[in-house]
C-alpha cells in the first residue's frame, strides 16, 4: 500500500493489554492501526492510535517512554511475546514499523514479572531495580579528593569489558523475558563492571552479597541458563556477566 506521497503504509490489528490500576484485573482490547508508515517507530505508531482513541472519548493507552533513542530505558513491552519486539538488540522506541507486514496482528502486553507490578496498561513499577542498585551498585567515594584520573591505569581490554557491562539501560526486559523472572543479568552487569575495574575491588565482596541478597528479597527468581535475557537485551549484554557475578558470589560467600 502506498500513499500519494510515495510513503509505504500498512494496516495492523492491535491487541493491547488494558489495566486501569495496579489491581490485577485487565484484558486485551483490540484496536485498528491504519495507514501506518513503515518509517514510523513502534511508539509513534502507538501515538497515532492514541490520538484516535482520545478523539473517540476513551482513555488512551498508557506506556512509558522518554528519550526515544534507545538509551533511557523507559520504554518496553512484550510484542507478540517478545520483549521489545522481534528485532535483536533494539528497544521498543527504536523498533520501526518496516519490520511488520500489512495485515499483521500485534499483541502488546506489559512486562510480566513478580517484582514489576503493573501501574496502568503497559506501564510497570520497576523501582525494584533501583533498590538493587541502592544495595551496593556503586563505589563508595564522596565528592572531592579523588586522585588524578590517570593515577590508576586500566588496561584497555578491561575498560572495554567493563563498558560492555555498564551499557545496561535498566529497562527490565531481562527479567520480563526470563521464565523465572530473574534479575541476574541486570544485577550481574553492575557487579561485573565494578569487579573488573580496579576502583571497584575494595568493595567487591560486600557488594555482591548485598546486591544478590536484595535481588532475592525482592522476589526475582534464579537463573537456570535459559539465556532468554541475553537474547532479548536491547544492549545485547552477555550472560558472561551472570557467570562473573556467580564467581564473585561464591568467592565472597566462602571467605566473607
Amino acid at each position: 500500500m502506498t500513499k500519494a506521497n510515495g510513503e509505504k503504509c500498512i494496516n495492523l490489528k492491535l491487541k493491547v493489554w488494558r489495566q486501569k490500576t495496579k489491581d490485577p484485573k485487565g484484558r486485551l482490547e483490540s484496536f485498528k492501526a491504519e495507514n501506518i508508515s513503515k518509517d514510523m517507530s513502534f511508539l509513534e505508531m502507538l501515538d497515532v492510535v492514541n490520538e484516535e482513541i482520545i478523539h473517540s472519548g476513551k482513555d488512551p493507552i498508557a506506556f512509558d517512554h522518554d528519550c526515544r533513542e534507545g538509551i533511557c530505558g523507559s520504554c518496553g513491552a512484550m510484542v507478540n511475546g517478545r520483549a521489545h519486539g522481534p528485532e535483536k538488540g533494539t528497544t521498543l522506541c527504536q523498533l520501526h514499523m518496516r519490520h511488520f507486514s500489512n495485515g499483521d496482528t500485534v499483541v502488546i502486553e506489559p512486562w510480566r514479572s513478580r517484582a514489576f507490578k503493573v501501574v496502568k496498561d503497559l506501564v510497570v513499577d520497576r523501582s525494584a531495580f533501583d533498590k538493587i542498585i541502592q544495595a551496593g551498585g556503586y563505589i563508595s567515594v564522596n565528592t572531592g579528593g579523588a586522585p588524578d584520573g590517570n593515577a590508576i591505569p586500566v588496561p584497555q581490554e578491561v575498560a572495554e569489558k567493563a563498558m560492555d557491562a555498564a551499557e545496561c539501560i535498566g529497562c527490565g526486559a531481562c527479567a520480563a523475558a526470563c521464565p523465572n523472572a530473574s534479575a541476574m543479568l541486570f544485577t550481574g552487569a553492575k557487579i561485573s563492571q565494578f569487579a573488573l575495574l580496579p576502583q571497584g575491588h575494595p568493595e567487591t565482596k560486600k557488594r555482591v552479597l548485598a546486591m544478590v541478597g536484595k535481588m532475592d528479597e525482592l522476589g526475582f527468581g534464579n537463573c537456570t541458563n535459559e539465556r532468554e535475557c541475553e537474547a532479548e537485551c536491547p544492549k545485547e549484554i552477555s550472560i558472561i556477566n551472570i557467570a562473573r557475578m556467580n564467581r564473585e558470589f561464591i568467592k565472597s560467600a566462602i571467605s566473607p
Partner: protein
Amino acid sequence: MKLDSKIPDGPLSEKWDKHRFELDLVNPANKKKFEIIVVGTGLAGASASATLAELGYEVKTFCIQDSPRRAHSIAAQGGINAAKNYQNDGDSIWRLFYDTIKGGDFRSREANVYRLAQVSNSIIDQCVAQGVPFAREYGGQLANRSFGGAQVSRTFYARGQTGQQLLLGAYGALSRQIAAEKVRLFTRRDMLDLMVIDGKARGIIVRNLISGNLEKHSADAVILATGGYGNVFYLSTNSMASNVSAAFAAYKKGAFFANPCFTQIHPTCIPVKGSYQSKLTLMSESLRNDGRVWVPKTPGDRRSPGDIKESERDYYLEKKYPGFGNLVPRDVASRNAKLQCDMGKGVGDTKLAVYLDFKDALKRDGQDIIARKYGNLFEMYEKITADNPYKTPMKIYPAVHYTMGGLWVDYNLMSTIPGLFVLGEANFSDHGSNRLGASALMQGLADGYFIIPYTIGSYLAEASPEKIAVDHKEFNISYLNAEARIKKLISIKGKRTVDNFQRELGSILWENCGMSRKNTNLRKAKKLIKELRAEYWENVLVGGSEKDFNQRLEKAWRVADFLEFSELMVTDTLERQESCGGHFNEDYQTDENEALRDDKLFCHVSAWEFQGNRRKPKLHKESLKFENVELTQRSYK
C-alpha cells in the same frame, strides 16, 4: 531590583579560591538541620543531591521519570571536556576558558567560565573514582578525542554513551545516599509551583503522576536542575518529558529568565521524515572528527551519493574554514548546512539534508577502528533510517538540541529569589550564545559536584531560615491554584489534542525563531502564539480524569506553559538586535554570512522579570565585562 552578579574581585584565576574562603560555612553538626529540595536527577541534580547528602544535609529529590537514572543527561553521546592536557597538545585551563568564551560568542561571564574550566579536571578524577568506564589507550591511560570549536583533544568519552555513563555514576552516588537515608527520593513527580514565603524559596507543589494527587513539600532552600526548554520547538533531540514548567513557575514567582532567545541548533541530527515524527535523534558531534560534510556542487543533483565524483562534491566546511574544517562550532556548522539547502543543494527526499561521509576514514583506519569509536551511533542510524553508514554517507540536518538561556543566576548559582538555586542547563550562565560540544556534561557536573555544595552552605548559614509548615497559607493558595488549572484543562473538552497544539507551536517557532530570524517574522510569530494560546484554553482536548495516571494531562500542563514561555522567547529575540552565536538575525551578518555582534549595544545578559499575565515582562540588563579576553569577530578560518 538591580542585578548583582556577585562576581568576586581579584585576578580571574584567584576569584573562586578567594570566594570559597569568603563564603560562610555551616558547622558539620548543624547541616542535618537543613532540608534542601532538589528537582531533577540529571547530571546536575543527581550530583548535587548526592554531594549535599554526603556533606550532611537532609535532601529531598524529585524526578518525573520512574527512576532517577532516566533523566535526559543519559542521552548525551560524545563526551566531556576537561583541561587535563594529557595529550600534551597545548591545552590549559586558560585555553579551555578562552575556547568556551569565544565559542559562546562573548556573551557569557568571564568569571563563571573560568571557574568551569578550573573545576573541569576534578570532574574527571571524581568520575574515574566512581568507576565510570572511560575509553582508555592501550597503556591504560585515559583516551581523548577532539570536538568542535577546539584545536586540542580534551574530550573524555565512554564510546558514544558518555552521558549515560556519567549519569549512572552520579545515580550510583545518589543511590548510596538514598540507602543511607540522607536522600528521600520522590519519583514520578511533576513540579507545578514554587513556594516563595517572606521573599525566600521555601518549597514546591508537585503532582504525583500515578495517583494524580497534589503534594506540598517545604524546605530551607530549593534547587532546580530541570533542564532546558528545547521542546518548545516540538521537534528536538530532547526527551519527550523535557519541559520548561518548573523554571517557568519560578519565573512567575520572581526569578528572572535570562537570554531565552539563545537556543542551540545542533548540526548533525537525523533529518525529519514524516508528519507523525515525535522527536529527532542526534548523531554525536564526535562523528565530525572522521566524517566529512559535503553536498553536490550542482543544485538539484538527484544522483545517489556513490555516483557523484569527488570533483563534483562540495566539501563546503573544509573549503570555507580551512583552520577548523569539519570541526567548526555547532552554530557555524548548522547555519552553513541551512545555507547549502537554501541554495538547492540539499540531498535526500526532502532536500533538507547534507551528507556526512566516512568513506575516507574507513579507507584509512578500517571498519574495526571506526566501529570501536562510533559503532553504537552507526547502528542507531541504521535502525532509524535503514541505511548503512559504512556503505553510504549519513544524511544529516540541524535540529534543536540545547538551550543556553535559562533562569538568571549569580556567581553562587542563586536566582533572583533568595534560596532558589538553579543548576545545569536550567540556568543561563556559562555558554553564552552558543555552547561548545562536550561542555554541557562538564557544566552540569561542575555545578552539582563542585559549586553548589559551597555556595548553598553560605546561604543557609547566613539566612538560617525558620522552619515552615506545609499548611502555611501560601502553600494552600498555590495548591488550590494548581488544582483549578488542572480542572480547567480537563473541563475544556475541545476538538484539538495537546499534541496537535504543540506541533503547531513548534512549527511557528521553527519557521520564525529558529536557525535564521527576521524581525517581520518574529512579530508575526508573536501574534500567532497569542492566537494559538487563546485557542488552547478554549479548544484543547485532554481527556481522562485528574486523579489518575493521565499522561495527556501531564503534557497538557507543560504545553500550556510552553505557550506562554514561547512569547517570552520571541520577545527576547526581538529585543536583541544583533546576531551572536546561535542567535542569527538576518539583518546583522558579515559579508560572509557570519553572525555580526553589536558589542556597543548588546554586550549584556537580558534578564526578564515577570509582570503579570497581561503585561510585558520587564527587561533588566547585566552588562558583561571582558577584562581578560579581547572581544573579536569569531574566526574559524
